């Protein structure tokens, strides 16, 4: 009964979304406000309706109504109430509904907040965002319905999953469900899908505004960019959090000692992040200088399409095998939708090409405009390299019939130098002035950091002379970091001198007064910390594997791991656990007892390797139990990774979130002190 209400709500939501798409478009074309307002009301209603079905699905998961196929698939009695709720996005059917629900929520907020402000764009904003929402609700209704039931057809070998009972079928209710994939029971994987989907759906809003601006020919003024600046930031930071949570999950659960494996599913998420980051920067060019207007539209179209592509890849499993594509109707339908929206919006852009005009010229290649342009190009080049490496196995199989693998070596080799160039640009670009940058003022901002970073990297390079390749990377990281910190220091010093504030107050006021600029710096600092994690992984990572008996030791990178014994026991949630007890020594000193273990989920027949980790800001010692003696438990095989600097990835992510919060602050009242402005302008070139 409840499931029927949920289903009914989804169907009505679908009809309303389709209606809103056409009515708003028609109303916009015919300039008929009644149609547009009707469409608006329909669009706003979609969210409460989908909320009803989401709440019902969560309730069914929580109360374990196993007559519903989705519940029987992802929920089970052994799961905690919390996990049962998160099973909403633990499988395909639920997560597509979840996607549509978030999307409709965003649309509702836009309609309530921007209805008056962006009146002319609204008809098409509704049309584009509701078209996307309708597509996802359509998938829920017709292809991957979470409310479908299990049926037993007499004589059939397998259960049938359908909404309406097949002829002479009996409802079937299993005693227990399969339960959430054990590998997904981790905070990273619980937080990863919602944050990622918030990011993906969030980018639909700027896209909808851009398309609306193109259709209404109001694209040359930057109303659409100003209206969506904060949406872009919100979408971007959620996508960032999603990426990092995914990395953390891989590090804690997958047991291969790293956080980023260039897996197609990871790449699918990285691509919209890359184009979204480029967009985030390049809209500043449009806001401040009225330039790169065509680029911005290209970038947001790409980000939208790649967000859909990301959902497509993770939800259809096409990369794992081309054949998975045809198994469900979802693949082809999805592919068609991405193709149509991409080609449609690109041709719309070309039809409006002549309307988009640059307002300013630049005087020098050494200008912030040039830096922004180069940065855009690098982001797009990385995106292309990642895209090409991700889809090439498919292309090779389709064209040549040869299956190939494009593994991490390709991605590291191709994107590594490009990321390096991007970081170099990141150190210089914020200090470049618009139009033209003089050498002297650039030196004033960068000389101290340059000298400081050279000294640091020489010392560091001497201490790590066995890894000569790392010196350049470390110089770059320390240069960027010091340049940003020095910039903060100069700002604080200026405030201290002119307003006699104490350093802390000066810092707070600096952030408040120029929150976009300094928020951006904090994000850049966070990016450099994440980069440190990648530098550690690329140059300093050490690993060893070996089989040892009880009391014997294994050594790597100055650490010794002593094997003390094995025990096995049953966990509470249907897992058998084999746990090793080991002691980690540095030199002769015991520093930590680690218990790496191997869990085996009996019902799901799924093993899971849980590392024992000794974690410090400098490095992690990450121990895996790889194997143990078959007859008796006298020996065990361990794999030990020494992962330097890896914790900076997580710390850096926190900085990025903090910086984004600052950058997204509402612009407060400007202080009216001319003296202060004059002083602050002087030491801050390029403002």
């Amino acid at each position: 009964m409840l499931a029927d209400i949920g289903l009914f709500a989804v169907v009505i939501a679908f009809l309303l979304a389709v209606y809103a798409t056409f009515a708003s478009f028609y109303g916009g074309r015919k300039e008929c406000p009644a149609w547009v307002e009707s469409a608006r009301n329909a669009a706003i209603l979609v969210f409460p309706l989908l909320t009803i079905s989401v709440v019902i699905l969560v309730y069914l998961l929580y109360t374990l109504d196993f007559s519903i196929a989705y519940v029987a698939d992802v929920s089970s009695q052994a799961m905690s109430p919390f996990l049962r709720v998160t099973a909403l996005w633990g499988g395909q059917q639920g997560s597509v509904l979840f996607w549509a629900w978030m999307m409709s929520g965003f649309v509702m907020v836009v309609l309530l907040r921007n209805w008056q402000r962006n009146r002319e764009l609204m008809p098409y904003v509704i049309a584009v965002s509701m078209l996307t929402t309708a597509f996802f609700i359509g998938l829920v209704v017709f292809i991957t319905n979470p409310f479908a039931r299990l049926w037993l057809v007499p004589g059939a070998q397998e259960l049938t999953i359908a909404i309406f009972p097949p002829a002479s079928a009996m409802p079937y209710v299993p005693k227990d469900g399969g339960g959430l994939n054990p590998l997904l029971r981790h905070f990273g994987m619980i937080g990863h899908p919602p944050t990622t989907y918030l990011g993906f759906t969030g980018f639909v809003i700027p896209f909808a505004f851009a398309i609306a601006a193109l259709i209404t020919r109001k694209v040359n003024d930057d109303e659409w960019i100003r209206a969506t600046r904060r949406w872009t930031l919100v979408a971007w930071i959620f996508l960032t959090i999603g990426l990092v949570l995914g990395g953390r999950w891989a590090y804690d659960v997958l047991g291969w000692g790293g956080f980023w494996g260039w897996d197609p599913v990871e790449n699918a998420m990285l691509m919209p992040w890359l184009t979204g980051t480029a967009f985030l920067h390049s809209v500043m060019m449009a806001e401040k200088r009225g330039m790169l207007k065509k680029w911005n539209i290209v970038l947001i179209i790409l980000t939208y399409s790649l967000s859909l592509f990301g959902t497509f890849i993770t939800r259809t499993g096409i990369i794992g095998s081309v054949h998975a594509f045809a198994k469900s109707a979802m693949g082809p339908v999805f592919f068609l939708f991405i193709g149509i929206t991409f080609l449609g919006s690109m041709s719309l852009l070309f039809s409006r090409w002549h309307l988009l005009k640059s307002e300013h010229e630049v005087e020098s290649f050494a200008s912030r405009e040039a830096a922004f342009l180069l940065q855009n190009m690098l982001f797009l080049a990385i995106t292309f390299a990642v895209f090409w490496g991700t889809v090439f196995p498919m292309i090779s199989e389709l064209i040549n019939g040869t299956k190939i693998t494009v593994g991490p070596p390709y991605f590291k080799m191709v994107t590594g130098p490009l990321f390096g160039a991007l970081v170099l640009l990141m150190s210089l670009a914020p200090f470049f002035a618009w139009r033209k940058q003089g050498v002297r003022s650039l030196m004033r901002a960068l000389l101290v950091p340059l000298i400081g970073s050279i000294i640091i990297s020489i010392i560091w390079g001497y201490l790590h002379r066995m890894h000569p390749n790392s010196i350049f990377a470390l110089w770059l990281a320390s240069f960027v970091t010091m340049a940003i910190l020095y910039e903060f220091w100069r700002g604080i010093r200026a405030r201290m001198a002119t307003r006699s504030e104490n350093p802390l107050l000066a810092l707070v006021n600096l952030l408040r007064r120029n929150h976009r600029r300094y928020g951006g710096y904090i994000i850049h600092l966070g990016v450099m910390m994440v980069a440190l994690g990648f530098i550690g992984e690329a140059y300093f990572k050490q690993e060893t594997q070996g089989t040892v008996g009880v009391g014997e030791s294994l050594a790597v990178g100055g650490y010794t791991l002593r094997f003390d014994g094995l025990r096995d026991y049953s966990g509470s949630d249907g897992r058998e656990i084999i746990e090793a007890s080991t002691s980690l020594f540095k030199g002769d000193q015991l520093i930590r007892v680690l218990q790496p273990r191997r869990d085996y989920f009996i019902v799901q027949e799924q093993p899971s390797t849980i590392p024992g980790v000794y974690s410090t800001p400098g490095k992690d010692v990450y121990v895996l139990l790889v194997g143990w003696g078959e007859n008796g438990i006298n020996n065990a095989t361990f794999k030990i990774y020494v992962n330097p600097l890896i914790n900076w990835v997580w710390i850096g992510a926190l900085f990025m979130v903090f910086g984004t919060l600052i950058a997204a602050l509402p612009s407060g009242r400007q202080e009216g002190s001319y003296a202060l402005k004059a002083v602050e302008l002087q030491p801050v070139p390029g403002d």
Partner: protein
Amino acid sequence: MKRKLIFIFLTQVAILFFVSIVAYAQGKIPTDDEVNTIAKKLYCPVCPNTPLDVCETKACEDWRAQIRDQLTDGWSGQQIIDYFVAQYGERVLAEPQRKGFTSLVWMLPVLAVAFGVVLVWQVLKNWRSVRQPPIDSPPPAPISPETLARIEKELQEMK
């Protein structure tokens, strides 16, 4: 004659020495690290996206055991990798080859970057060239009295 005998003797000693080294080397059991160094470069066909050195499945365990056996028999790393490619095809390689159709995967990103650099250069040059206004461009039309009156009226209303 005596010298010849000594030469033969020395040669035999040398040969014996060499053979025993080879035998010793072959008898030595390779470490897990040596196996993993090679396994890192391979992917088994049934576990997509998981490199062989960290894959937990039985099939991958068997592959690693095979690599260990081959190392014990004195195969070089390249020989072992070639063997797996010959047996299971190109897909076992983590790093795609740089020949044939597969070389496209490497070439296109390089071309894309080259194209991007040229494009950026062109755009920048375009930006820098100070455009002369066309000589015969009409002077901006003066604002008509009606428009002025309307603006005045709207300003009044705003107050």
